């Protein structure tokens, strides 16, 4: 069973994404910012990271950059989830190593399709 880490400082957003992902059979952990996410990832590498941009202590861009610099855990796909929609934000996301950049709020079916795609799973 694939393990996903939700990284977001908003409790309701974490719960929302958790409900969607657990409903589809994934195992889910949470972190409220990039530092906590790194600590959890170093303890147990996840199969996919769902990453908010704006968080206290360490933001989403910085987290993904750090993730990519730790050889043991660098490989997993990271989906950046953001309220911001400027092209420069997208560029920045790919620059730091995100695989995908989606705008909040994500509809459940779109989120699941992207997650399955990145995890190499078939659509149903």
């Amino acid at each position, binding site marked *: 069973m694939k393990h996903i880490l939700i990284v977001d400082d908003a409790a309701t*957003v974490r719960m929302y994404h958790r409900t969607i992902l657990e409903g589809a059979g994934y195992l889910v952990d949470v972190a409220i910012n990039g530092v906590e996410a790194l600590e959890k990832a170093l303890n147990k590498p996840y199969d996919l990271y769902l990453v908010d941009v704006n*968080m206290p202590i360490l*933001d989403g861009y*910085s987290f993904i950059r750090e993730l990519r610099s730790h050889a043991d855990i660098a490989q997993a796909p990271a989906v950046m989830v953001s*309220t911001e929609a400027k092209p420069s934000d997208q560029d920045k996301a790919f620059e730091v190593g995100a695989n995908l950049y989606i705008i909040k709020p*994500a509809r*459940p079916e779109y989120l699941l399709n992207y997650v399955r795609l990145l995890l190499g799973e078939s659509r149903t």
Partner: protein
Amino acid sequence: MAFITQNISSENAPSVRKPAELIAQLSDADALSRRWAARDLLLHPEAASALVAQLQAEQEVSVREVILTTLTRLGGSVAVAGLVDCLRSEDAHLRNEAIQAMKALPLEVAPIMGALLMDNDPDVRIMAVNILESLRHPQVEEWLLAVIDNDPEVNVCGTAVDLLGEVGSVASRDPLLRLKARFLDEPYIQFAADLALKRLGKA
């Protein structure tokens, strides 16, 4: 080899300096000097504008963090005006640290919260709502309800509803129901509003 003791003495410490000297050191070439200057300015409220100026120029995160701590400790309207400017920065880390700092300054933030929540930029409005997350001020729920009743942007409302899950009282019930009706097609809003409604409990 063994355990040794060498008495910690303040002789080894850098000496205490006057404010004018400290302010000059804020832009020293050496990061350690800048950090110490920012730290020692804790005792000098008149230094707020110098600290704000350096904050906007400072590239070294370890210095920036100390400037932010000192500004937050000093408080006052000059500090908060500087922090508000940081909300518009291109640097996500700086924006978020400014939000954190402002959360600790309820008295200075309260008079400007109304304006921030009406800013033209929805990202600034989202950040303003985020500041309410830990703000210790009696008006927090009132501000959040004004957002969910009036803001056109789904993400601004979404951020506010998340907080109402924690601080919402019975006064939130009708505004939450109106929000649900306004954003019928948004699953996140329905989810978040339902959660907040559930948590309102008995009157």
